[in-house]
């Protein structure tokens, strides 16, 4: 397993947000974290990243504990994080946002830069612009592009489709499929159609605890589970990303 969480508990102030999170992420592919609003999905990603450190339990990355490490040290181990609000530095240019995330100046980074420019041609045209002027979709692409500039072996992505137009969500699905070729992805997603389209495995979190996990295609067929934990009663667009 590339990432394992066992009996993780996290408090935010006096609130016991995560009560019993157990998560096994194998190398490669996309593991989707699902659950209702307020279930603890975002806090799970922030806890892995060290932004809201856990009070109990264990978090191991490639067999070594990362619990208690500061976020920058966790990131240096090869874990990238894209928060729900994308975390773009709007006062900086697109180019500066990208440069800031590069950790080396070697040939590999240069080739990654060219790869990113090929995947996101929109960004190439806007390198000198302040990133605050980008559209929501472009900001999301910039956030993903930043993580691709380094040799990140695990990407944590929090609700990338939130607030995006359907056509941009379809493009996002393509990008996540591209990401799978380079890295392991843990994706928090409310858009079930998108989750179904890109995910291989899932875990469901409810009230701060892991309640189910398994193969995504099976969840796609299990309407009872969808209704019970995700509140999905209508057909999920037949798995079509819209």
């Amino acid at each position, binding site marked *: 397993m590339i990432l394992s969480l066992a009996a993780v508990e996290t408090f935010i102030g006096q609130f016991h947000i995560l009560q019993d999170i157990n998560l096994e992420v194998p190398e490669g592919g996309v593991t989707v974290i699902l659950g209702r609003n307020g279930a603890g999905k975002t806090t799970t990603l922030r806890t892995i*990243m060290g*932004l809201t450190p856990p009070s109990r339990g264990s978090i191991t990355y490639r067999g070594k504990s990362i619990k208690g490490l*500061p*976020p*920058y040290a966790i*990131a*240096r181990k090869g874990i*990238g*994080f894209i*928060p729900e609000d994308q*975390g773009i*530095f*709007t*006062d*900086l240019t697109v180019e*500066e946002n990208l*440069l*800031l*995330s590069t*950790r080396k100046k070697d040939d590999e980074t240069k080739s990654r830069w060219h790869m990113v420019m090929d995947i996101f041609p929109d960004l190439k045209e806007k390198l000198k612009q302040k990133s605050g002027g980008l559209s929501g979709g472009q900001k999301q692409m910039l956030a993903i592009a*930043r993580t691709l500039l*380094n040799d990140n072996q695990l990407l944590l992505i929090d609700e990338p489709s939130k607030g995006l137009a359907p056509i941009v969500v379809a493009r996002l699905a393509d990008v996540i499929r591209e990401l799978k070729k380079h890295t392991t992805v843990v994706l928090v997603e409310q858009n079930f159609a998108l989750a179904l389209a890109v995910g291989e495995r899932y875990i469901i979190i409810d009230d701060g605890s892991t309640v189910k996990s398994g193969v995504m295609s099976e969840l796609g067929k299990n309407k009872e589970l969808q209704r019970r934990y995700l509140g999905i009663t209508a057909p999920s667009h037949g798995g079509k990303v819209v």
Partner: protein
Amino acid sequence: MDTFVNLTLNGLATGMMIFLVASGLSLIFGLMGVLNFAHGSIFMAGAYSGVWAYSKTQSFTLALLAGMAVGIVVGYLAELTTVRRVYGKPVAQVLITTGLMLVLNEVLKAVFGPNIIAVSVPPLLAGSWDLGGIIIVKYRIFTIIVGLVVAVAGHFILTRTRIGMIVRAGVQNQEMVQVLAINIRRTFSLVFVSGAALAALGGIMMAPALGAVNPNMGLENQMLAFIVVVIGGMGSFVGSALGGILVGLAGAYTAWVFPEASLAVNVILMAIVLLLKPNGLFGMGGGRNA
């Protein structure tokens, strides 16, 4: 006309002197958002130690280096022991840095004594040039040059280097900078220490212009520095330089026309700028969270 040119040169020199005091605060308060009420004490530590070094070596270069070295040490210790614990907590910053100011002021009195210590302008920079009735004081020109060098260098570092990029990003979103594998705490410590070094530089530069150092100079100049940073705009190094020049010029012209109002004009200037541009002349609109 001669009077106008003289007043303008005096105002520019005073403005640059104020900017040198405010430049460190521009980093610490303007960029990082840390309300450092001990800034004037660090400025004074630089002034006193620089004057002491000058009296021992007769070298103004060594005095500048000694003053800045003391500023770096005091800044480093202040950040390590107190300021680091109150990042993001403005009320705690006011309380703890006020306490730090009182402690530093007493330490300076204990080390250098409570009396005024006279200091003269270094011989190389003493005197003036007479250009057809326009008297140009050499030390003022030196001050303008040093101020410009600091302003340009500071602006260059903040806008053209990786460390500057990290600082600007950290001001906007500390958490996200850490997620990009950057130790933002270390960067902010460096910024705080740099600000302290600039405060100390301001202190030793101002000492010969005043002709003496005294135990009240820190507090007197600290308020002026806050005014300059607010006028220039939070987070803008060039804004602080322009703010310093505006305050210097306004003070010089007002002192000629209506001397009693030369101090009040700074506050009036700040009020006018804030009414017209609430973020200051070059202020960044974004929030800061240090």
